[in-house]
């Protein structure tokens, strides 16, 4: 009960803060006030939601909204789960923004919309009828659009905002239609939808629409194209919120519709989800590997993680449809756990990018380097988050991916042949994506923070402010904790998994040494705490031993230069050259990447050059033809503007007759 009340008051308070932000944006400390209030509100909601994770849930209705419907709110374990994700991310972003927001040139474009954005995301999670849900969804979309447009004078941002707006409207339309089909005759309250079970065909339609609607917001391929444009365009704390939190709200929407409202599952519904998830994961990470803009790289990596989460959700659907609740619980836990983890580490990564941006004004990693010397703490936080996202033990990313692998490992029990072939293929994609992420973040961290500075701005960078650092360190600490004690998170997720999958994973906290066990009879287990302790003891112990036995004499010297002294920092490997082998191997297939080398004859003074080109298959294959088709149709429809009144009347009349016919025949 407390959580719901807090959310209601919190949303009202956030609206009030938005007003403060709107009217007082130009005051000197407006940013600090707004962000501190946001931090307090979202922190309170997060703590209350933590308390109601296992709770019985609470409902409330308010007489505002559509007449006769009102607006219904409800907090159940699933909603509480996502409230924790949303508000923890929001609290961290607000804390970060207390410091980071001071560098904002036009605070009046950010401050009013930031609280609105938070309010919208909170409302989506607690909505209990279609109207409230869609209203909150649109509030979230529009507020985030306004935030994307806050730096609208920078090149490319206006286009990013436009594409985002188109895709967001498209997604909302799909969700609207999904709710329309779900409501059928029963009404727009979620309780009524839950009671009515649509048939297999209309169920599949709802699934498709939910996949399009929620997937376009989350960044599923091929609807992801707006994401790498829009997320980086916003200020960094908003980027962190959009990537780390808003995509989770979209996932919440998908889970709510497909697992909760839709009723019993049919097995083949899982196939598109699995396939799209696997392809999204692979495509996202490949894009990230080719990218040199730091924030776009992170946005592409978000797409990859969303793919992993959807893959796990697809597996859960398959298990649930086949009456294998243990498998469904495992896969669903993996998905939810990964959603939580991704909120943690992606926020840190965007915070780090923001810190670099403030310090250097540069997002292009090719122009940076050596920042580990200048920004020791934020680089350390970025490193921890990069290791977590690369799924390295003992951090949290590995724990959730391990669960996903275990879910694949129990999936031969699925009886359908289609799934038997698809699941190993998707498993290969997951394994490939997991390996490529590590490569991607070695490249990102290595070029950005290691080596020698490539430009003047990188040489003179300074460490960011202490609020930003605190936000990063808190989230990093949570990454480490969730990695060492994954059992705690799994048990916290258990009530919502129980409600959706019909079973839960075995209780983890009671197991010896806090090991996590996916399925009791699988005889597999993983213990983050043990591995972490082992690693620390061995690394520390060997270092101490070596220093004790062999001494610690160290001499600083110039690096080995092959006898060509004075090679400048530009002779280092660049981001493009680092990923060149992978671009040649994988990019040649996926992106049709080409390299043109122009090597002048010896003795010529012309500079040598290498040009590389990559083609985004989704733009070329899906959206460009779509654009042409829309233009063509628009051209044809244009004639309709120049008809006589009589013809317009005729069209209206014919439509009326057709509708009447449909009603007459169909009814």
């Amino acid at each position, binding site marked *: 009960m407390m959580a719901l009340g807090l959310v209601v008051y919190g949303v009202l308070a956030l609206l009030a803060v938005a007003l403060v932000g709107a009217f007082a944006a130009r005051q000197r400390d407006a940013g600090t006030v707004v962000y501190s209030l946001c931090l307090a509100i979202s922190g309170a909601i997060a703590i209350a939601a933590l308390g109601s994770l296992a709770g019985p849930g609470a409902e409330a209705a308010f007489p505002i909204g559509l007449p006769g419907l009102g607006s219904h709110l409800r907090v159940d374990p699933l909603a509480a789960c996502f409230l924790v994700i949303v508000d923890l991310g929001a609290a961290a972003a607000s804390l970060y923004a207390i410091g980071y927001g001071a560098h904002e040139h036009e605070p009046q474009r950010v401050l009013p919309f930031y609280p609105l954005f938070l309010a919208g995301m909170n409302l989506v999670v607690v909505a209990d009828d279609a109207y409230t849900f869609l209203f909150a969804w649109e509030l979230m979309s529009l507020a985030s659009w306004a935030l994307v447009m806050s730096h609208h004078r920078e090149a490319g941002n206006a286009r990013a905002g436009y594409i985002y707006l188109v895709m967001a409207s498209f997604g909302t339309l799909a969700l609207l239609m999904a709710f329309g089909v779900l409501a059928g005759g029963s009404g727009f309250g979620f309780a009524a939808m839950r009671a009515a079970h649509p048939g297999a065909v209309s169920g599949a339609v709802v699934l498709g629409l939910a996949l399009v609607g929620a997937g376009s917001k989350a960044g599923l391929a091929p609807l992801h194209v707006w994401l790498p444009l829009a997320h980086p365009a916003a200020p960094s704390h908003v980027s962190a919120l959009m990537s780390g939190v808003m995509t989770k709200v979209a996932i919440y929407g998908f889970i709510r519709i497909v697992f909760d409202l839709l009723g019993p599952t049919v097995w083949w519904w899982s196939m598109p989800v699995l396939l799209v998830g696997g392809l999204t994961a692979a495509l996202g990470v490949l894009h990230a590997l080719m990218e040199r803009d730091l924030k776009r790289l992170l946005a592409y990596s978000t797409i990859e993680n969303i793919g992993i989460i959807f893959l796990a959700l697809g597996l859960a659907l398959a298990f649930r449809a086949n009456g294998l609740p243990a498998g469904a619980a495992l896969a669903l836990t993996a998905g939810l756990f990964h959603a939580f983890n991704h909120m943690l580490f992606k926020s840190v990564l965007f915070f780090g990018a923001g810190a670099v941006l403030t310090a250097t004004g540069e997002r292009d990693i090719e122009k940076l380097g050596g920042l580990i010397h200048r920004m020791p703490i934020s680089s350390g936080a970025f490193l921890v988050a990069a290791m977590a996202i690369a799924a390295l033990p003992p951090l949290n990313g590995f724990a959730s991916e391990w669960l996903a692998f275990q879910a694949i490992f129990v999936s031969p029990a699925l009886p359908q042949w289609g799934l038997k072939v698809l699941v190993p293929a998707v498993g290969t994609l997951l394994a490939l994506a997991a390996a490529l992420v590590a490569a991607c973040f070695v490249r990102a961290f290595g070029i950005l923070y290691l080596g020698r500075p490539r430009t003047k701005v990188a040489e003179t960078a300074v460490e960011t402010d202490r609020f930003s650092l605190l936000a990063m360190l808190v989230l990093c600490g949570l990454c480490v904790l969730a990695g060492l004690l994954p059992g705690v998170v799994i048990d916290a997720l258990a009530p919502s998994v129980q409600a959706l999958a019909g079973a839960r994973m075995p209780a983890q906290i009671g197991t010896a040494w806090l090991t996590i066990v996916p399925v009791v009879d699988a005889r597999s287990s993983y213990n983050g705490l043990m*591995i972490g302790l082992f690693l620390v003891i061995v690394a520390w112990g060997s270092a101490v031993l070596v220093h004790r036995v062999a001494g610690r004499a160290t001499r600083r010297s110039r690096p*080995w230069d092959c006898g060509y002294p004075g090679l400048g920092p530009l002779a280092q490997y660049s981001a493009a050259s680092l990923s060149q082998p992978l671009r040649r191997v994988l990019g040649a297939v996926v992106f049709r990447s080409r390299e043109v080398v122009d090597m002048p004859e010896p003795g010529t003074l012309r500079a040598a050059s290498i040009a590389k080109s990559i083609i985004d298959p989704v733009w070329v294959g899906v959206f460009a033809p779509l654009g042409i088709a829309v233009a063509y149709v628009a051209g044809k429809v244009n004639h309709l503007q120049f008809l006589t009144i009589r013809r317009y009347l005729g069209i209206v009349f014919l439509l009326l007759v057709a509708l009447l016919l449909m009603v007459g025949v169909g009814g």
Partner: protein
Amino acid sequence: MIGDLLLQGVQMMVVLALAPLLTGFVRKVKAHLLRRQGPPLVQPYRDLWRLLNKEAIVADSASWLFRVAPYVVFAATWVAASLVPTYATGLIFSWSGDLIAITALLGLGRFAQTLAGLDVGTSFGGIGTSRELMIASMAEPAMIMIAFSVALVAGSTQLSNIAATMLTYQVGLRVSLALALIALVIVALAENARIPVDNPATHLELTMVHEAMVLEYSGRHLAMIDLAAMVKLLLYASLLGCLFVPLGLAPEGSGIGAHVLGLAAYAVKLAGAGAMLGAFEVSIAKMRVFRVPNFLGAALMLGFLATLLLFVSRSL
């Protein structure tokens, strides 16, 4: 309990103690096949000792990461190796990490090593890192697919359980296991920077991968990295042994006799693996760098095929 702890400790120490010997043995085999005398078997120990006692030279532009990385690499590799049954199953800590965790631990080692390669900011580190990343991003998924196929046969991803299952000989001949074996051999060659993927004996800049990455290291740091590489080679040999030749592995709770027998069998297996590796390396040439993805892609495909066969037909 004490006995189990002792068993785990002894296995870890055996791994550490034997790792340089295996490397020395492979070198000896290669030298003999080339009609050379070759360095003595204990040369790797001497090398490590000599390196440990030299002062470490660190480049001006290096950060703390460069100095920490060798210990991280070593720790990750050794912890991974401690999860692989060498001469007896039933390791007490084996429940804390499975085959996927072992792969990920090796990934952690590589993460640290590749970052250290980039830290100094020279082209050598970059070229090594770049190629290592390419190799790893094919070898790691292949390894996970192998883990899948082996685990599906044995019903667990835990190596001690897998080895125990393989030891019962109920598994019999399996097409998938054969495919997984070939894939694992390919992955092992690539991961250990052996011919035909990389040449551990060369310092020719344009062809090397691993050696380019660690070019800036010296003294005790280099000793740790070399030791980690040796442990990794032993890890893969043990892995091949316990998965595909479980012969002689002392089962859980058996007496001293079985353990002595297990140790002897383990020594024979290591010698066999080392001899085969040496013979293979002298009989084949190194590949061009851009042939390597095809080679590893084949391993990935084989792993996938093995998993697919197991998924589709549990009896294959």
